[in-house]
């Protein structure tokens, strides 16, 4: 297998992978980091890493879970690198200017109690929930994507559900949930159990 053959195959493979999955990968990363521009950069990074690691993919039928695994690592690495804690403003939000009607609507749509509660739980738990509930990964795929054992993935998902439940209850109970959440976000672990 020559290097040239690998490059062409990798390019062709990533092209197809991008066509099928870039939307869901972007959606996953955006829900992880809540910053559209950062999510786009990370999506790009994930596909570049997939291109580089093409030869490491043993079974093409596992490509989707493999891609989520790459994206998940990219997200965790980037969040650690940029020291993202919990709450990031939406990059598209107008700073220092009056919000437009569409921004107000977007803010309402994207920053409800559920989104805020999700943002408060630990990243790995959030990832487990998103991948299981919104991206329909199977148990084994979830474990592969998270880079843990099947049992650990299940345990992570259970803790995520429990912490989400508590965070949601607090969001709903708070009179001004946004500020409440930001207050909590400034504390270690965002008020949620690791």
């Amino acid at each position, binding site marked *: 297998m020559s290097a040239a053959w690998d490059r062409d195959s990798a390019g062709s493979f990533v092209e197809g992978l991008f066509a099928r999955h870039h*939307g869901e990968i972007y959606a996953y990363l*955006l829900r992880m980091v809540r910053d559209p521009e950062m999510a786009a950069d990370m999506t790009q990074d994930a596909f570049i890493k997939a*291109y580089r690691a093409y030869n490491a993919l043993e079974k093409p039928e596992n490509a989707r879970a493999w891609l989520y695994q790459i994206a998940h690592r990219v997200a965790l690495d980037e969040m650690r690198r940029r020291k993202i804690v919990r709450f990031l403003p939406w990059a598209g939000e107008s700073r220092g200017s*009056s919000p437009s*009607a569409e921004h107000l609507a977007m803010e309402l749509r994207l920053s409800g109690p559920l989104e805020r509660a999700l943002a408060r739980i630990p990243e790995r738990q959030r990832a487990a929930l998103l991948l299981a509930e919104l991206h329909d990964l199977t148990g084994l795929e979830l474990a592969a994507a998270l880079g843990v054992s099947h049992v650990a993935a*299940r345990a992570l998902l*259970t803790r995520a559900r429990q912490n989400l439940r508590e965070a949601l209850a607090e969001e709903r109970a708070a009179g001004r949930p946004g500020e409440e959440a930001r207050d909590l976000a400034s504390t270690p672990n965002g008020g949620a159990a690791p």
Partner: protein
Amino acid sequence: MTLPFRRRHHDAESPHERARMLGSDRLNWPIAEADEAWLAAHLEGCGECRTAIEGYAEDRDLLRGLRNAPPMAPRDLWARTAAAIEREARRTTGRAGRDGPRRLRIGTAPLGALSSALVILFVVGASILSQPVPPPQATSSPPGGSFVPEPTPLSVAANGLNWIKSNADGTVDVTVARVDQVCPPEDKGCAPLQDNVLTTITLKDEPRAVVISPTSDQLVVVTDEGSSSSLIVVPVTTPQPSGEPSSEPTPDVSPSTEPSAPPSSEPSTSPDPSVGPSESPEPTPAGATTIATGITVVGEASYSADGAWFAFAARPADDSTGPDLYVWHVGDPSATRVSFDERSVFAGWAGGYILGSRVDVAPAIDPTEGSPEPSPSDTPDASAGVEPTPDTQPHFARTFLVDPMTGIATDLGIASAWRPAVDPLGTRVVYWDGTLVAGDAVGWQLGVGRLVLDGWTAPAEPTPSPSLDPSASPEPTTNPSIDPSASPEPTPVPPGPLGMPTVLIDGAAGIVDFDARFDPTGTRLAVWVADATDPAIGRLHLFVIDPETGLVDPKLAPLPGVPALRGFSMEHNRLAWVTPPGQDGKDSRIAVLAWRGSLFGQNESDPQNHLKIVR
């Protein structure tokens, strides 16, 4: 240490932990029959676990509701990714050093033809993105369908824009459009801006201008009836997010279907030509309120940044005197006049203050020879029956600040600074650095000078805005003797221009009018300069301000002057304007220049008639 035997995964779990994990598992995947039986038995006797697992199911439904609003990936994502992969391929090829540098091939098409391949993939991606996150079974489906090639757009995080267009039935649509993608200037293939109706208003005539509040919950509509203008506030009850068609019927507020009251027959004897609802001929229906009538609005008008105030300048409709400043406190029944010199115009907002310019009645003196002292004649003489002497002398301007809450004016002194526009950060200012000459009985025109960029010293912020309760509104007119030239409290650094201007546009060729506005970051500055023969049309420029030096970056000239109608919109990451009709033989279009960092792109609406920018 080595364990003597392998533990089963739930040996260390409490029954409750095991029950909750199984309850969580079975929401997504089938569990073993034995586990199912064990769980059922446990839940029989454990109300807490039962409640927890029921809660998991509720939250799951909530989470899955997010599928209904899938995020949209940027349209240029594949272009960016493919370019990065190509760089990666070149890098690895160079490292191998055997095949020599060559372009990455993607699929069967060489990367030299990448743009068309990218477009196809992009459209595939867009079709995927328009659906909820696909389930696993959809992932094996290959992309398909036929696609029309498009240029690669630039994704931007810009504020949406609003404009108005007049309909054949006399109604006026206030529309909203997203600006999230633009194309490089050389490309004309971006899909046109798509607008959706925010609200529809019924007017007797096409409005002269419409201003939307910062929170998009109300409009101030300036209508003309002959030489008389009215300002009508129209609530916007159901703002629609742009990009999504309105499914609600648009309200018919019909704010002004009857002529306004005729102007006062003796406006010169009236200290305040503004009138409230009591002088309106009819109560305006559906929540619309007339806050001023019997006037002629002079120049631009705008809300304060917090949306609590609306300021403008106006003169009596019969042109008996020059203009004065007015402010309307949102919720009040009418606007209030806050200057009484009859030669003041609204320049903009500087923090929480209204920034005004007033023509100094004393003839201009070269500043190097000393500034003239304010004279008693600076006080307006409203005595009737005195034939005004034609004034052919050049004049300078005075800049002043008005606290909208108290109506107290602070004079910043005489300077050759007319209609200063201050950036939102309060550090830079643009103004006409030159003289003014009397144009007609009540108007002033630009004389000799230039448009300049200067530093700005911001004043201390005024006291916070009061409650929106009209009953709590202050009444600045209770003291009609507000003296714009009253000396402020001494401050170490007086607010105003720093006096170190750099030229933006030289006025040697003659500038008859201008409009200048900064973006919210203070690093982009749009300047519109009117055409000498038709002041309704001009040329619009965009300057990039270097935040380090505070000066115009000479390397970037993204909009060196394009034809534009009067009135433009400068918002976060974008500038929008109306192209003059007749360009390419077509009607006007809404044009937008948007940016991401130092990358710029443009887009336009389809040609339409009677367009006006709202925001």
